[in-house]
C-alpha cells in the first residue's frame, strides 16, 4: 500500500492525544486514592486536556486531507452499523467532546461531590467525566485499529496485534508526552508518567516485534494463479491495460526500494522504542530530556506508521505487476 501522510498523521496524533488524556486521568485516579499528590485543577488537568485536544484536533484536521470530498465528511457517520471507519468517525468527536467536558469540569472546578465511596472518598464530576472519556478513548483506539484489522485481504493487518499495537503505541507516546508535560506543569508527577511511559514503550516494542515476526512468515493467500484462474507454475504479466499507470498502481504500491524498506525497519525500532527508553530513564533525573524523548519517539512512530502501511501487500497487486 502507498502510505498516505494524512492517515499517518491522523493515527499518530490522535494516538498521542488519547494516550495523554489516559495519562492525565491515571494520575488523577492515583491522586484520588492518595497514591500521588493532588494537582491543581486549572494549571494541570485543564491545561493538559487542552494539550490533548490540540493533538486530537490536529489529527482530525489531517484526516480531512485524505478525503476527495472533505465537505461531505459528515456523511461518514451514517454506516456505524457496518463500517469501522464510520465508527471511528463517531468515536473521535465523541472522545474529543468528552475530553473537552473533562477539561471544562477542571477549569470551572466542578468538584461538588456526587456521591461517596465506602472509604469516605467523594466522587466529583471530573472523575465521572474522565471515566467516560477513558471508555471512549479505548473505543477510539479499537475503532482506529479495526479500520485496518478488519480488512481480511490485507493479511499483514488482519490480526489482533494491530489493535493491541495501536493501543500500546498511542498509549506509549501519550504517556511520554504526559511525562514531558508534567515536567513543566507538575514536576513531582513526571517520574510517575515517565515510569509508565517506559513500561508502555516496552510493551509496545514487544507487540510491534511480534507483528513484525508474524508478518515476516506470512504466506500470501492469493497468487497470480488464483487471480486469473490459470493453474500454471509460470505466469508472467505482459500488460496491465494501462501504460501510464492507474489508480491501482498509485494507491497500492509504495514505490520504494527493498533497501529503503530494509533500512526503515531498524530505524523506526530505534527511534520509537530504544532512544525514548534511554531518554526516559535519563529523564528521571534530567527532566529536560523528556520533551526530546517525545519528539524523537513521535518521529519514530511516523516512520513506524509509514512502514505499517507500506508493508501491507494488497492482493490486487497480482493484476498490476508490469506496465507495458
Amino acid at each position, binding site marked *: *500500500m502507498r502510505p498516505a501522510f494524512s492517515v499517518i498523521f491522523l493515527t499518530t496524533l490522535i494516538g498521542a492525544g488519547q494516550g495523554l488524556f489516559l495519562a492525565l486521568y491515571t494520575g488523577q485516579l492515583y491522586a484520588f486514592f492518595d497514591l500521588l499528590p493532588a494537582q491543581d485543577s486549572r494549571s494541570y488537568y485543564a491545561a493538559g486536556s487542552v494539550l490533548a485536544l490540540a493533538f486530537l484536533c490536529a489529527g482530525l484536521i489531517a484526516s480531512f486531507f*485524505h*478525503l*476527495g*470530498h*472533505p465537505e*461531505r*465528511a459528515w*456523511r*461518514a*457517520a*451514517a*454506516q456505524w452499523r*457496518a*463500517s*469501522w*471507519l*464510520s465508527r471511528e*468517525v463517531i468515536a473521535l468527536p465523541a472522545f474529543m467532546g468528552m475530553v473537552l467536558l473533562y477539561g471544562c469540569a477542571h477549569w470551572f472546578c466542578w468538584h461538588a461531590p456526587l456521591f461517596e465511596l465506602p472509604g469516605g472518598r467523594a466522587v466529583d464530576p471530573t472523575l465521572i467525566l474522565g471515566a467516560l472519556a477513558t471508555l471512549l478513548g479505548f473505543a477510539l483506539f479499537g475503532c482506529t485499529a479495526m*479500520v485496518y484489522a*478488519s*480488512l*481480511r*485481504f*490485507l493479511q499483514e493487518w488482519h490480526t489482533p496485534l494491530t489493535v493491541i499495537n495501536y493501543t500500546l503505541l498511542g498509549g506509549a507516546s501519550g504517556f511520554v508526552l504526559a511525562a514531558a508535560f508534567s515536567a513543566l506543569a507538575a514536576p513531582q508527577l513526571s517520574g510517575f508518567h515517565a515510569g509508565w511511559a517506559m513500561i508502555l514503550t516496552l510493551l509496545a516494542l514487544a507487540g510491534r516485534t511480534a507483528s513484525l515476526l508474524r508478518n515476516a512468515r506470512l504466506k500470501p*493467500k*492469493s497468487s*497470480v494463479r*488464483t*487471480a*486469473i*484462474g*490459470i493453474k*500454471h507454475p*509460470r*505466469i*508472467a*504479466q*505482459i*500488460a*496491465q*491495460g*494501462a*501504460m*501510464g*499507470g*492507474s*489508480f*491501482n498502481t498509485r*494507491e*497500492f504500491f509504495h514505490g520504494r526500494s527493498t533497501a529503503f524498506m530494509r533500512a526503515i525497519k531498524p530505524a523506526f525500532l530505534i527511534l520509537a522504542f530504544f532512544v525514548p527508553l534511554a531518554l526516559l530513564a535519563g529523564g528521571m533525573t534530567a527532566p529536560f530530556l523528556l520533551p526530546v524523548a517525545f519528539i524523537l519517539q513521535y518521529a519514530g512512530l511516523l516512520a513506524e506508521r509509514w512502514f505499517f502501511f507500506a508493508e501491507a501487500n*494488497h*492482493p*490486487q*497487486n497480482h*493484476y*498490476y505487476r508490469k506496465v507495458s
Partner: protein
Amino acid sequence: MTQLALVIDLNVCVGCSACVTSCKEWNTSGAAGPLSDCNPYDANPTGTFFNRVQTFEVGEFPQTETVHFPKSCLHCEDPPCVPVCPTGASYKRKEDGIVLVDYDRCIGCKYCSWACPYGARELDEKQKVMKKCTLCVDRIYSTTLPEADRRPSCVMACPPGARLFGDIHDPDSVVSGYTLMPEWGTQPANHYLPRRKTTITIHEDQLVRADNPLKIDGKLPKPSRQQPTLDDVTSW
C-alpha cells in the same frame, strides 16, 4: 433472486480492447459525468476506466500461451467493498445484484478500494469519487434504446463474442465458469471460461495424398521448386 453478471470466455477473447474503448465511450458520456483522464495526449497518460484488458504469458518460451484477461468489477454476491463504506455510497441492488456507487454521497476516502481484492475500483482524479463498472445500468434498463441495445456496452462491442451477459442465477442459462480468487469467499458474480487446449487436427496424409499417383512412378509427391506446380497450369 436475479444476479446480473458477465461471463467472459478467455478462449475467445483476442485482446483487442474494443470492450475497453466502448465502455469508456459510453460511460464517459453519461449523466454521471466523465471518466476523467490526466495527460491523455502527453507522457504517462492515465485515466479512469471501468474495464481493462490485461495480458499474461503462461508457460516458458517457446511453450507459451498469451492470455488476454479482461477485468472489471465482478459484482460479488458478498461484496466486501459495500459494508466498509462509511457513508453508504457503495451499495448492492437487491433487485438485480449490481454493485453501484452513489457519486453524490461518496466522500472519496478510498476505503472501499482497499477492501476489494480485485482492484476493480478506481478513484476519479478529477471528480474525486470512487468509480467502478455499473454493468451499464443506464443501458440495460433504458426505455429509449432499441431492445437489442439494452446490453452492456462492452458486450455489444466484443467482436468475437467473448463476453456474455445475463442472470447468473438463471437455472436455464447455459453459461457457467470459474471465479477469481475463490479463497476470499467473495462469490464474484462475473465468471470466466477457461482457455482450452488448441491442437492441430490435420493429419499428415491429409496434407500429402496417400494415393498420389506420382508416388507410383517413384517420384516425389511434391514437385521441386523449379518445376511448374499444378497451381500454375490449372485453376483447380
